[in-house]
């Protein structure tokens, strides 16, 4: 008849009815709490998702790219250099790549125009990414017009809209035949934008890069691993900045929590006194308050996470647009691929639930350890 768990259930029951009794206060507390979790979770999800997208983008990039520098700036490279580089030991393949940016006034951003390397595309035809199709409002079989280097329009048939695993990778892509790229940009024969290099053993890449620079002092090899590091550093720095800003928000939340949840009201203190006087132990009172705190924390934590998930993955983190504007220049319009990992959730938990619990613990402890006879004299 006396199950040890029954005590927990009885006290949980009472905790729930106590929370309902102070509806206004607890709702406002849960609301603010949820907001803090929401903002922090949005930021963490967003930065993580961008990092993942960037990593994916780079997975499809070649191991190494070689550019030519002229006066410190990126300039077309002689396609013939590909032959010389291919002869370096360890190099498996060298592909001259032909690509450039095309500013589209309607799109309000740059498209990436690229000569297709894998499958031949007919002259005057293009394959376009989902983002381009969406913004130009075109379907397969439609015609699009691009302004060439001399201002004259060039018409292309949309032959195919690229399937997307991750939109970020191909969203702004326009693929066409190499000859069409050259006429669009007035790109001379015999030159390429850069050279993509594949090594037999990726660990030899730094040695290969050194040999290339030795042989072509105006060449700049860029390793994929370096790019990856740069991306991550940029994201982490931006994210870190936001964390500092949010830290102050969090702090004010903790102060709020301290004040509201735990600056126990006189009424609550009186109730704790009554409970002690009618035979509740300090540990029973602590259990009661622990349940109350857990219900508030978990509700806020779960709803904050849920809202952040919807915000980041269904609304593309719209509320951060201004704060994180740099990224919209870096990337075209996209929808981030939903993903959650346990590590992020754990970090969030420690950033929110823990400070709240710590802030509420001390005053409750003090009230719970009052002498039971105090209630006799109020």
């Amino acid at each position, binding site marked *: 008849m*006396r199950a040890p768990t029954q005590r927990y259930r*009885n006290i949980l029951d009472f905790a729930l009815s106590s929370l309902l009794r102070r509806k206004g206060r607890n709702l406002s507390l849960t609301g603010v709490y949820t907001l803090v979790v929401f903002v922090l979770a949005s930021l963490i999800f967003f930065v993580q998702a961008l990092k993942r997208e960037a990593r994916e983008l780079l997975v499809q990039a070649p191991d190494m790219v070689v550019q030519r520098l002229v006066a410190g700036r990126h300039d077309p490279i002689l396609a013939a250099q590909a032959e010389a580089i291919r002869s370096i030991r360890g190099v498996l393949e060298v592909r001259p790549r032909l690509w450039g940016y095309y500013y589209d006034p309607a799109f309000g951003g740059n498209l990436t125009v690229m000569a297709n390397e894998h499958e031949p595309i007919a002259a005057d035809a293009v394959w376009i990414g989902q983002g381009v199709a969406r913004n130009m409002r075109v379907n397969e079989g439609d015609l699009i017009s691009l302004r060439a280097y001399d201002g004259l329009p060039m018409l292309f048939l949309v032959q195919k809209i690229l399937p997307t695993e991750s939109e970020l990778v191909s969203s702004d892509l326009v693929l066409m035949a190499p000859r069409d790229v050259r006429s669009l940009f007035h790109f001379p024969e015999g030159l390429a934008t850069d050279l993509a290099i594949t090594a037999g053993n990726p660990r030899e890449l730094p040695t290969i890069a050194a040999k290339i620079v030795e042989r072509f002092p105006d060449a700049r090899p860029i390793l994929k691993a370096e790019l990856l590091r740069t991306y991550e550093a940029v994201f982490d720095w931006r994210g870190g900045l936001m964390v500092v800003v949010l830290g102050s928000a969090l702090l004010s939340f903790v102060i709020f929590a301290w004040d509201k949840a735990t600056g126990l009201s006189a009424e609550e203190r009186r109730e704790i006194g*009554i409970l002690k006087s*009618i035979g509740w132990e300090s540990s029973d009172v602590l259990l009661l308050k622990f349940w109350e705190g857990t219900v508030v924390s978990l509700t806020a934590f779960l709803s904050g996470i849920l809202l952040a998930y919807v915000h980041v993955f269904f609304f593309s983190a719209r509320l951060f647009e201004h704060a994180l504007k740099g990224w919209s220049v870096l990337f075209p319009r996209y929808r981030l691929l939903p993903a959650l990992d346990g590590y992020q959730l754990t970090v969030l938990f420690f950033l929110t639930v823990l400070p709240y619990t710590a802030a509420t613990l001390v005053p409750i402890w003090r009230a719970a350890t009052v002498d039971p006879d105090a209630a006799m004299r109020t």
Partner: protein
Amino acid sequence: MIELVQVVKTFQAGLATPFTAVDGVSLSIPEAQITVLKGPSGSGKTTLLTLIGCMARPTSGRIHLHRLPGNVLPQLQAGDSVEITSLPERFLTAIRRRTFGFIFQQFNLIRGISVLENVMLPAYPTGEDHRSVEARAVQRLESLGLGRHLRASVERLSGGEAQRVAIARALINDPTVLIADEPTAHLDSRLSEDFMALMGQFKAAGKTLLITSHDPIVHGSPLADRVVELRDGQIVAEP
């Protein structure tokens, strides 16, 4: 039976202004009788109740509880005696729950929850099944004429009703001793007499009653088996 030996309670002992509220009280409180502590305000009645009821510890002296009920602590059996002044808090709470029911001067009901839940509250930490506690609470409240108010919020009750809720709450863990501190302070004489009649019923049912009061309806009642007078923390006259 409860036995007090040379019990002293000094507040702020060791500070600049120590105050001795109970000063060497020796007393036995017999079972199944009504004992009334009378005396002017400030004479130490409430303080003495908190000492007997395991709510506070005396500064010196001994308090023995004889013939304990069962199910108090695993190391105690029904009928055992304990000396409570040296027990740790956890044990005191356990003894208090099973042995004493308190009816406070201010009733000390919790606002915003129902009459029924107020009555059930002392049983929650004992881990007893919720439904059996509820059944018992309903039965207690009905026998006290509060059947219609089970779901009412306690702030709506009249003084007499609030006190009967407090009585039902004091009885929920079926204690052997009922302690009432100035129970008639907020009642008119009719209700005060009703209260004493109720105490008479509990006495007949075998409960030990300990009541403080300076109300003649209480200490002058024929139901009171014994009246102990306190003055300045000391017993004045024992008939």
